[in-house]
């Protein structure tokens, strides 16, 4: 397995990957970092409610590069979750378009993995069987033993080895969320969508899981979108933070972080990190203020 460039590709794809790297080297192609995997193009969306129409997104345009990690923050109820549902193909926008890997999203695609604030594990299944659920739905060539191995390996990576046959109700909230992350990643999705997955956890558990997220990313790269209310979480996990304005949401501010990829918790407590936090906080204030005036 060491011969492969990463554990995502098949053998043929892998040689193509090397060829591509070669072309980049000789200057015939642009490097990977520039390639966008998720593209949200001028999307507007309005919900129809009993009291009338509720515009949630307005001319939203943003993109996430391949293997990048983007955090989306914004005032409460500004339409952040709508963004995740649009990217997952669970919702169709009123106007504009969403692209994944250069293909327009028209319906759910199985290259997406999702985790929510509620871990939504199935109580009647063991942790292992819960993690294996996507493999039962997404077409794949894995044999039953390989599926189990894959799930076990992931569980071990997040520190849940030995809990495979427990029921979700026997685990703590943090452990359940870890299992939920494993389930989101088990079918090796290109895109991982996290909708406030750590929101309901205590501070220490949350920090543990942040580090696990970096480990998972290092182990098998994916493109991540994180919805969060926690600015520290955003700057610790993401490569870029996008601040959405109040409803109807549009991109108000974007901050590329100097730290990319894995980093240690200590780096959250530096002067630079604090300055970034202050900038983001100021942007959230502006977004909220604008919304109040609008209302």
């Amino acid at each position, binding site marked *: 397995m060491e011969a492969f460039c990463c554990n995502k590709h098949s053998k043929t794809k892998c040689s193509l990957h090397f060829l591509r790297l070669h072309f980049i080297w000789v200057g015939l192609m642009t490097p990977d970092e520039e390639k966008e995997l998720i593209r949200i193009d001028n999307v507007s969306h309005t919900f129809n409610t009993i009291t009338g129409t509720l515009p949630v997104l307005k001319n939203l345009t943003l993109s996430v590069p391949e293997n990048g990690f983007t955090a989306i923050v914004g005032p409460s109820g500004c339409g952040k979750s709508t963004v995740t*549902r649009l990217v*997952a*193909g*669970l919702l169709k926008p009123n106007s504009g378009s969403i692209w994944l890997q250069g293909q327009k999203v028209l*319906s*759910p*695609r*199985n290259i*997406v*993995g*999702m985790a*929510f604030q*509620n871990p*939504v594990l*199935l*109580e*009647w299944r063991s942790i292992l069987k819960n993690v294996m*659920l*996507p493999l*039962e*739905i*997404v077409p794949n060539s894995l044999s039953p033993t390989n599926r189990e191995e894959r799930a076990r390996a992931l569980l071990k990576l997040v520190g849940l080895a030995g809990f495979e046959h427990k*029921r979700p*109700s*026997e685990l703590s909230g943090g452990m359940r969320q870890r299992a939920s992350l494993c*389930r989101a990643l088990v*079918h090796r999705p290109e895109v991982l969508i996290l909708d406030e997955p750590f929101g309901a956890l205590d501070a220490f558990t949350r920090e543990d899981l942040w580090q696990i997220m970096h480990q998972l990313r290092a182990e098998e790269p994916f493109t991540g979108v994180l919805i969060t209310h926690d600015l520290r979480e955003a700057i610790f996990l993401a490569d870029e933070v996008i601040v959405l304005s109040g409803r109807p949401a549009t991109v108000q501010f974007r901050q590329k972080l100097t730290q990319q990829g894995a980093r240690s918790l200590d780096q959250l407590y530096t002067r630079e990190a604090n300055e970034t936090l202050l900038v983001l906080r100021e942007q959230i204030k502006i977004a909220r203020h604008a919304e109040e005036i609008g209302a």
Partner: protein
Amino acid sequence: MRQIVAPAFAIILFLMFWEVLVWLNDWPDYKMASPSDLWPAFWRFKWLFFTFGWETLWRTVVGLVIAIIVGVTFGMVMGFSRVVRDGLYPLLVGFNAIPKATVVPIVALMFVGQHDLNTILIAFMISFFPIAVSVSIGLSTLEPEYRDILRALGASRLTIFWKIALPKTLPEFFGALKVAVTLAFIGTNLMEIVSPHGRGLGALFDSGKTNSDYPLMFAVLIALAILGIALYYVVVLLERIFASWAERQAE
């Protein structure tokens, strides 16, 4: 051990209290039979008890099975479609609100002579409502995230139903089935008592009444109680097999 001894003790205590009560008040058996009168009454008609007990049992079970099939179907349709739920709910509530004792003579006249059909029909009518309601509530209160997890992977509606909606509704379903099993039993007996030339334990009860054989009437009540307990625990057993995950283990 405790699970056998405690209920057995409670039953013995209850029978003793009953016996003493009758003895202290010096009630004649036409006012209230005492437990010691019951065994002779049972023994005298023991074959009738077994054959009629069987009649009552199988009709109740068949009525219940039909109630499960129809109830689950209604529940599924109402659980998945808001329009159908809003449309059918008042009708079902009204149907359920009619005391079944008033429907019994109508059905008995409608299908006169077809005693099995009548009895099964009433057992079904009385017991399908709680099943339909619980299944529809179980399905309609499924958190959207559960559906999204599978939908995001491109799962079909059928897969979502089979993998998530159905197992998630099982605890509610069994809860309703426990109620339904007792109701179906009531339905069967209502018909057996009312219907002329009926069979089953209800008919035996009725003949006890016509012959002023009060110990027999009480013996039938006890037989009904035993059958009811047996049916109830069959449901509990099924629940243990299919939905044991819903029980929290005591630490």
